[in-house]
């Protein structure tokens, strides 16, 4: 029996069940009140980098693989993926939470990383979403639906991810300037942060280009700094930044010290989302305590 088949059998066809990854974001989207609703069986997804094809820029990996292990394997060939997380975080966990990496200006969104997912549905049947190639419009895009779904539509055993070359050089700079003053001086920065007083920017790429951008930014009064530590909670931003926090410029996210709550979605969208969940999991057995609508951003 392959690890994937064992995973399918473990998930089975009855009873509430979810996947436990590293447990680093266990509370995301979870309804604390639902904890009392009865036990949910926790299973683990297969672990290991199965096939890394640097020349193809794709990697097939068990969803239970720690991100650090994947990163180490990819780094041997100078590549990386658009997933990031604290120590212990797994590939599957990062995808199911679906947050985009801080360096999204370079790596794109988390959702762009997932090419194919080998899943187990609520009926206990294994199925594959997406395809192995970097370009694919065959059938419906279930991969995008799965990213950020918190394992409520299917449980993920194995994935194929798109990889990126690790940039030759990178530098963080910060200074008391507005983001609008920075943007004409840089091209596609990996990220731009603004706390209301200072802008921090991460420039990446060819060494000479990074040096050149650093020179221009230092003329503006910015200096090299360590990667900033962000406040722990992610809030949505509509428009600009108000109150204390750190804005990811252009990403629609503000990092703040206080926890965030998710806004209600319009009725029509909520009804459609409920139909999607019912269609994939009519008995609500997949991670029943979680709902992506509880995730603010």
């Amino acid at each position, binding site marked *: 029996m392959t690890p994937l088949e064992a995973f399918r059998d473990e998930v089975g066809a009855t009873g509430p069940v979810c996947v436990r990854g590293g447990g680093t974001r266990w509370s995301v989207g979870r309804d604390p009140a639902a904890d009392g609703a009865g036990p949910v069986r926790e299973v683990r997804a297969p672990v290991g980098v199965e096939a890394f094809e640097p*020349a193809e820029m794709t990697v097939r990996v068990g969803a239970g693989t720690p991100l650090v292990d994947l990163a180490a394997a990819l780094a041997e060939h100078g590549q990386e993926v658009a997933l990031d997380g604290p120590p212990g975080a797994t590939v599957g966990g990062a995808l199911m939470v679906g947050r985009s990496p801080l360096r999204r200006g370079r790596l794109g969104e988390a959702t762009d990383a997932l090419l194919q997912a080998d899943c187990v549905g609520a009926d206990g049947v*294994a*199925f594959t979403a997406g395809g192995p190639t970097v*370009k694919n419009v*065959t059938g419906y895009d279930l991969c995008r*639906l799965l990213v950020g779904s918190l394992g409520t539509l299917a449980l993920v055993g194995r994935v194929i991810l798109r990889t990126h070359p690790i940039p030759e050089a990178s530098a963080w700079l910060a200074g008391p300037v507005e983001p609008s003053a920075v943007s004409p001086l840089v091209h596609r920065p990996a990220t731009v942060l603004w706390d209301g007083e200072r802008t921090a920017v991460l420039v990446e790429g060819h060494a000479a*280009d990074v040096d050149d951008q650093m020179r221009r930014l230092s003329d503006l009064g910015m200096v090299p700094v360590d990667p900033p530590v962000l406040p722990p909670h992610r809030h949505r*931003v509509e428009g600009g930044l108000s109150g204390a926090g750190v804005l990811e410029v*252009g990403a629609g996210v503000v990092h703040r010290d206080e926890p965030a709550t998710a806004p209600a979605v319009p009725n029509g969208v909520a009804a459609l989302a409920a139909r999607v969940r019912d269609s994939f999991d009519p008995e609500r057995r997949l991670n029943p305590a979680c709902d992506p609508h509880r995730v603010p951003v």
Partner: protein
Amino acid sequence: MALGLYSRDGSVTRGGRAGVVCFPETTDEVAACVRIAVAHGRAFVPRGAGTGLAGGAVPCDDPVVVATTRMDRIHEVDVERRFAWVGPGVVNLDLTRHLTGTGLHFAPDPSSQQSCTIGGNVANNSGGPHCLQDGVTSAHVLAVEVVLPDGEVVVLGDEEGRAVGYDLRGAFVGGEGTLGIATRICVRLCEDPPEVATLLLGFARVEDAAATVSAVIADGIVPAALEIMDQRVVEAVEPFVHAGYPTDAAAVLIVELDGLPAGVAAEVERITAIGHDHGAGTVRVAADEDERARIWKGRKSAFGAIAVIKPDYYLNDTVIPRTRLAEVLAKVYEVVDERDLIVMNVFHAGDGNLHPLIVYDAREPGVMERVLEAGEEIVRISVEAGGVLSGEHGIGLEKKRFMHLQFTDADLVAQDRLRRAFDLHGLANPAKVLPTGASCGHVTSLGRPPEGMWV
């Protein structure tokens, strides 16, 4: 009203029949069309410019055709936040033109960009030569207002691309008109690159051009575009555009690099070296904007130019692993030669997206069968090589019957779950995409391409 015009699209699918064709101008009018169709138990088929190549817009059994071409307003461009709200009927190239001077652009640039609509791009999740680095349409749609198949209007996604809950926007894109009708689209705009370099490499063997592509990617370079044209295409195109393509080469490779100057210069050097290592006879870097424009004009008018060779064409679209380009391409030529047909290859090599274009004369007895057979064989070879059925044209009617080559029953059931959540009544473009869907009575999958279709 010429209903016949709305009975087909850019594919070779024939025999479609439009019952009624509606030209709504507002979201409310689209919703009314859908409600009326559904109330009468009639299927509806969304339609853009009709340039689709998989039969997605071909009406099966007298449905209500809802053409969104008159919803062609660019509602809003937010240069600072880098998005634009557009009507689904806006022609792709018109948006590009509208953005000139803002320093921003909409990345997906299908070769049909002079005619195809953004609504069609969204429904087919279309690509284009410049989607290698930045991704196809799905990566450039932040939000979409949709009339769902029950007439309800929803906005999926948001201007920040950070909507709460499931990524229903992501699920809708590529739905080929089976998940509802897009009535307003919020597209992401990309920054124009400060520096662009366009290279033209000539090779004595197609395999060498293909191997160069694999080697470039393996070297960790992801160019803005990486396109191959074989000799037949070059010979057909060069007399029209005078791009200076080497007509004695078996294949030319167009490489475009963009970004900051030092990175671009370094990559030009590396690609030149990789090209020479793989037997490139000529490597030319476009000296100015005019030369660059001509190189691209040739690429984008390739389909038009083939008309001089044979009156009919059948264009396939599959993806294979980019490490296997040379090998699979050789097989494609073999398959076509064996059937005494002519193939021209002009394709998005950088992401392994093959576009074998079989040209023929439909008046020749028995030729259709051979064309069809070759097409099927190419699909089979691609899937066997670890590839997929379609990279950008979609499944529509054309490739439904191949879905089992790539997917198990369980895979298709999962896809159908998504479809049924959107389309409760099964009336949204029902005969398309999934082999389990409704059949399409009168339609044959091969016929003569429409006149005046050349783009």
